[in-house]
């Protein structure tokens, strides 16, 4: 494939990261964190975020070290063909699975909350198709899509956060470390796993106008995402209290249910919230799917990633349909999340260390020149 056009600005890269990270996981996030540390949920979220925040720095540094190569390409340059092939295949497989479970999770939310008699297969395939069709576009459009939907992600979260202030009670957030938090570490890992989509920065860097801004973009993108996470957890726990939150499968959605717009414009917000949330889930799906597809293309050295979009669809759909019920689904998601932390954080860190030891580095020239041109 030819060198992709370098058009993505730092703002677009940051927006891509944020909208990738905010997705269906947010609906259940307060439940996970409350289970970990009752009223310490915001702290768990913050720590989980910080773990991911630090954890993805090596990946970004790696990307900036090889500013014009994608993950598959530079991992080959670092550790050789076959070891890297296995590593990259793991990454790709992981993101295929992540795509599958994201769509399944949202499918479950939709059929439980809104479309109770629609088969879950239909809602899942619709989301997957939507993502698959959109992954056929190029990386620039990919970044545009994320940038465009970014406000749509901010508005509902901020709106519900602001409206729920009315019913919030600070007592519910105290003590901030929780009453005898037992599963703190587990909660932190679960939260950090929600940020695994940040891996998409590896795809974005080779198309950035100024790859040297990648760290900055990563910083802001993840920071906004993390702030929204903390805000959602704070809002949910302060309104419901830790105990009530642990009774709710999707506390964030319930929060939308417990708020109404002033003057009864909309009597309840849950269906509307879920509708708007479709876009954020779509961007998350798009990212992980796009990552899968483009890295596959690099792995098999094809010229176009388009054909993989539809090719992967049956596999992803099949994986999505594997869990038998909603409890099993969440159990699987947690396990997959843990594995994902190894794939997306530990593995790139290892790669970076090896790259530094072996002093490997990608050619910088064209990137620098592009930077100067604008």
């Amino acid at each position, binding site marked *: 494939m030819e060198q992709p056009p370098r058009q993505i600005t730092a703002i677009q890269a940051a927006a891509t990261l944020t909208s990738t990270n905010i997705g269906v996981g947010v609906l259940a996030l307060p439940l996970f964190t409350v289970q970990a540390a009752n009223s310490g949920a915001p702290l768990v979220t913050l720590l989980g975020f910080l773990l991911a925040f630090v954890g993805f720095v090596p990946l970004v540094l790696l990307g900036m070290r090889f500013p014009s190569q994608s993950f598959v390409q530079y991992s080959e340059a670092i550790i050789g063909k076959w070891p890297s092939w296995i590593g990259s295949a793991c990454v790709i497989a992981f993101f295929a699975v992540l795509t599958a479970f994201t769509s399944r999770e949202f499918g479950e939310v939709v059929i439980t909350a809104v479309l109770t008699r629609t088969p879950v297969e239909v809602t899942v395939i619709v989301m997957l198709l939507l993502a698959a069709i959109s992954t056929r576009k190029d990386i620039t459009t990919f970044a545009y899509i994320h940038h465009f*939907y970014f406000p749509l992600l901010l508005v509902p979260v901020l709106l519900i956060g602001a409206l729920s202030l009315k019913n919030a009670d600070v007592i519910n957030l105290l003590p901030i470390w929780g009453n005898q938090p037992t599963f703190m570490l587990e909660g932190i890992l679960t939260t950090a796993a929600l940020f695994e989509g940040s891996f998409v920065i590896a795809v974005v860097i080779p198309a950035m106008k100024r790859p040297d801004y990648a760290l900055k973009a990563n910083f802001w993108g993840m920071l906004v995402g993390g702030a929204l996470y903390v805000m959602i957890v704070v809002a949910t726990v302060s309104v419901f209290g830790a105990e009530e939150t642990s009774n709710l499968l999707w506390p964030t959605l319930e929060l939308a249910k417990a708020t109404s717009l002033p003057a009864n414009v909309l009597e309840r917000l849950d269906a*509307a919230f879920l509708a708007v949330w*479709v876009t954020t889930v779509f961007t998350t799906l798009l990212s992980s799917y796009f990552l899968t597809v483009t890295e596959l293309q690099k792995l098999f050295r094809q010229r176009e990633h388009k054909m993989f979009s539809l090719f992967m669809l049956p596999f992803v759909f099949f994986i999505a349909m594997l869990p038998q019920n909603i409890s099993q689904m969440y159990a699987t998601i947690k396990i997959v999340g843990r594995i994902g932390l190894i794939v997306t954080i530990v593995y790139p860190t290892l790669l970076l260390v090896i790259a530094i030891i072996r002093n490997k580095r990608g050619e910088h020239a064209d990137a620098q020149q592009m930077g100067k041109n604008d």
Partner: protein
Amino acid sequence: MRRIRQRNGKPNSESTGAEVADQGLANIGDERISGNVEETIARIREKLGENDDFTMRRFQVFGRYPAAMFYFSSMIDQAIVNRDILKPLMYMPAYLEDKPIEQDRLKSVLLDESLHHSEGKSEDRLAKLIGGIVRGQTIVAVEGLDAAIVVNTRDVDKRSIDTPATEQVIRGPREGFIEILNTNIALLRYRLQTSDLRVRSMEIGRKTASKVAVCYIDGVTNSDLVKEVQKRLSNIDIDAVLDAGYLEQFIEDNHISPFPQVQYTERPDKVVANLLEGRVAILVDGSPLALVVPTVFSQFYQSVEDYTERFLLMSAVRLARFVALIFSLVFPSLYVAIISYNPELIPTEFAVAVAGGRAGVPFPAVIEVLLIEISMEVLREATIRLPQQVGGALSIVGVLVVGQAAVAAGFASPITVVIIALTTIGSFATPAFNVALALRLLRFPLIIMAGIFGLYGVMIGLILIANHLLALQSFGVPYLSPLIPSDYQGLKDLLVRGPLWWMSKRPEFLYPRDKTRVSPDTMAQIKSPPDKVLNPANQSEKER
């Protein structure tokens, strides 16, 4: 005006497209006329003689040399032919009387000394001559001359310059383009009295040989854009170009998108404003609409009036227009989704009332809305086609009586009629007819999606539309610029219209050569406090 070569590699590519394409001229080739008038008459008659409006007139130049004049009587100005061609050629100038004129000087005497017309030239290729007659020129062939004199005597009746019918404004110029290209160019030129305005023309259409003018401002418009426009235009090989719309469909980037990627307008001031932003305008002879490229989505809800009124008010108006645009797209589908899927969203009293209104309607909300929508489209289309006097009456009959009757007959619920009426009216608030049409069309799939999945389906549909818009480009300019990718200068003129002095730069996404619109001095001037000359304090001091 410079002629541009077209379709290289074909025979006769030396001349303009029309002659090549004309079947009647195909076999003539490069044939030239001889000095024999009778032979020329025979050749031209052979090609054009079957037309009743073709006129051939024999006369004697200066009473000595036999000559013949050819023209289409329907396309020329008879008075000019009589006064400026026939008369001076018949009467020998006084200073030449009695002096013999040598055969080789005759041509220059006729062209340079006798002819009283500014657009006259000599031509010897037969194909060119016939092509000229077809375009309304008058040909004079003189015995002994190996070239004929071609004089432009074209005079086609035209309508007068009128108020633009579809883009009316309250504040702003009242002139609209007409069908004649030269008039249209004149309308542009007197607004842009700069040597930088470039008008390049070419002829497109094998049969129509329509003159197409590409206008841009040298030093502002990106030259790559001009080249690309000309390249795309010159690739068009079609028999007829009857309107600018024909060209639009050939030069757009995405041919199957419902969204127009080329803007059309009948307002010269709008074209000038676009030229000044760094765009290229394309005018076609015979079409009162100019095309403007590249086009971005935001242009479609902007109107020239936005810039003539005060910015605060027009920003609000523009926002209202934008809301109407969005409403015309999603309103019916939202209604269907809420009624059929999520009635818990609306207030209880309202929900129960709506249920009451719908109680007698036999169809589900989707079908009901689709039916009313389709009949609304039919009504709308019928109103356009009908003569103006009847049209107004019909629209009232259509909306009031049919709507009322549909409700009374239990065919539709009153709220549906209200929703559809609002939507239809909302779609007329969009200044650009073509984008309103696109959104009206996209409304239907959205309604169907709403019928299948409720709000979820509406969102899926909207995401598909938005993704399409994000991938769409017009001459490489992303369609949603300056929103995505963001451009600070462009954002000042997106949803709100910033004050003119604040929008000091041309939009960045068009990559104009010269970026400055408002000079920094003016900016400084505006920011400094104004002189209060007639302030009572100042004036009374002066009087003392």
